[in-house]
């Protein structure tokens, strides 16, 4: 399995990368971790003429708390997030998610930006970012813009990024006190794409009432799904067994899975229900500390 030939570019700045993108357009592919792109190139499912490797551009890998957000550079590796004390403490849901992606070697190279920009509904981070209400920052010939993740995944393997844009940063609002989240993934074996995955994030006030809820679903539609009805059902509730069951049912109803080797449509929808409830239970336990 050998990739087709291509020209290789190593810009040392974002400006340089942007001008290369403008020059080669659809013939170019951006390389960051390469853990999805290179297998596709080896199977010759992708044969880009130009590879633009962003790894030589300084300042694109970081995790920091700033302006009420956790900001993560697009080239931050999964392994770096896994080891981040900040993420472990403030965003356990993101820690859960990262650990379930592929395997340790792939996570040493794979990047958060790549995981999102690939637009694969089977990737795990999109659901979590939907649950957390994150936004991504992209830079293009006309400057920088922020895109809420709710508007980012537009179609199968298609994002809101323009062909000449580069994703540079992910911004996650810091959950207020009383928050907790969890990501659960059913997989045929470890490292597999999800049969179904559910990210759940809740905030609970002093009276025990849910003030905010976010639920994202992995690999159960042609795009990552935000289960808005389920979220609405939880907001204002006391998160009782009945509340969780009904929310789980609404999340399942929001999924649009298709039957494949991982299971039937019916099975996957049922799994969204089961995993949503379990993820919420874990999220609530964490929120209550």
């Amino acid at each position: 399995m050998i990739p087709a030939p291509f020209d290789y570019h190593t810009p040392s700045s974002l400006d340089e990368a942007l001008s290369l993108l403008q020059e080669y357009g659809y013939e170019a592919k951006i390389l960051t971790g390469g853990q999805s792109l290179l297998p596709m190139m080896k199977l010759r499912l992708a044969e880009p003429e130009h590879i633009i490797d962003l790894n030589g551009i300084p300042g694109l890998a970081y995790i920091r708390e700033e302006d009420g957000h956790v900001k993560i550079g697009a080239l931050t590796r999964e392994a770096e997030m896994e080891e981040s004390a900040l993420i472990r403490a403030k965003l356990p849901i993101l820690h859960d998610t990262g650990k379930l992606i592929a395997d340790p070697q792939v996570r040493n190279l794979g990047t958060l930006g790549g995981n999102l920009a690939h637009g694969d509904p089977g990737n795990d981070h999109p659901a979590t970012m939907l649950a957390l209400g994150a936004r991504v920052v992209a830079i293009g010939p006309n400057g920088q813009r922020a895109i809420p993740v709710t508007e980012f995944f537009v179609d199968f393997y298609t994002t809101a990024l323009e062909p000449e844009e580069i994703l540079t940063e992910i911004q996650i609002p810091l959950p207020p006190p009383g928050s907790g989240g969890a990501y659960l993934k059913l997989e045929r074996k470890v490292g597999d794409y999800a049969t179904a995955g559910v990210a759940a994030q809740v905030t609970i006030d002093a009276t025990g009432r849910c003030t905010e809820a976010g639920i994202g679903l992995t690999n159960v539609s042609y795009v990552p799904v935000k289960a808005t009805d389920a979220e609405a059902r939880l907001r204002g509730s006391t998160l009782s067994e009945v509340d969780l069951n009904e929310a789980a049912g609404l999340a399942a109803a929001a999924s649009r899975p298709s039957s494949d080797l991982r299971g039937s449509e019916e099975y996957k929808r049922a799994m969204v229900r089961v995993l949503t409830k379990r993820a919420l239970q874990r999220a609530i336990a964490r929120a209550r500390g």
Partner: protein
Amino acid sequence: MATRTVSITVNGETHTRDVEPRLLLVHFLRENLDLTGTHIGCDTSNCGACTVLLDGKSIKSCTLLAVQAHGKAVTTIEGVAQGGQLHPLQEGFKEKHGLQCGFCTPGMVMRAVELLDKNPDPTEDDIRWGISGNLCRCTGYVNIVKAIQYAAEKMQAEEAVEA
């Protein structure tokens, strides 16, 4: 398509070669440098037989271009034993019968080097998840887990002595 010049330090020695950009690191190691200890077992980044260290981190060398390793340090199975002395992991695999056909072994050992580097005292679960990107068809993993535990204990004991 133009070739590129790469300089890659492998097991302490720097090698400079003109390569096609599409050349995979695993082929650079095996065919350009004749370091055949790193193996290829799949096309899809699943099996881990090609695992090497890139600047100390375990990666799958079939899913990295040689040009991406330019200016970096690579360690392969050939560079693990030092001064004729087997690494505690190599010793552990032998003592605990953690290998049979030996084909997955170099990747397994290289992965375990980083695993113990990050987590010197892993639980059985840490080890099993830690090697989940490496497939073995012969051993059933039980003795690989024991081999890594053996090395962890030995390395900790050595560190205690040094301290």
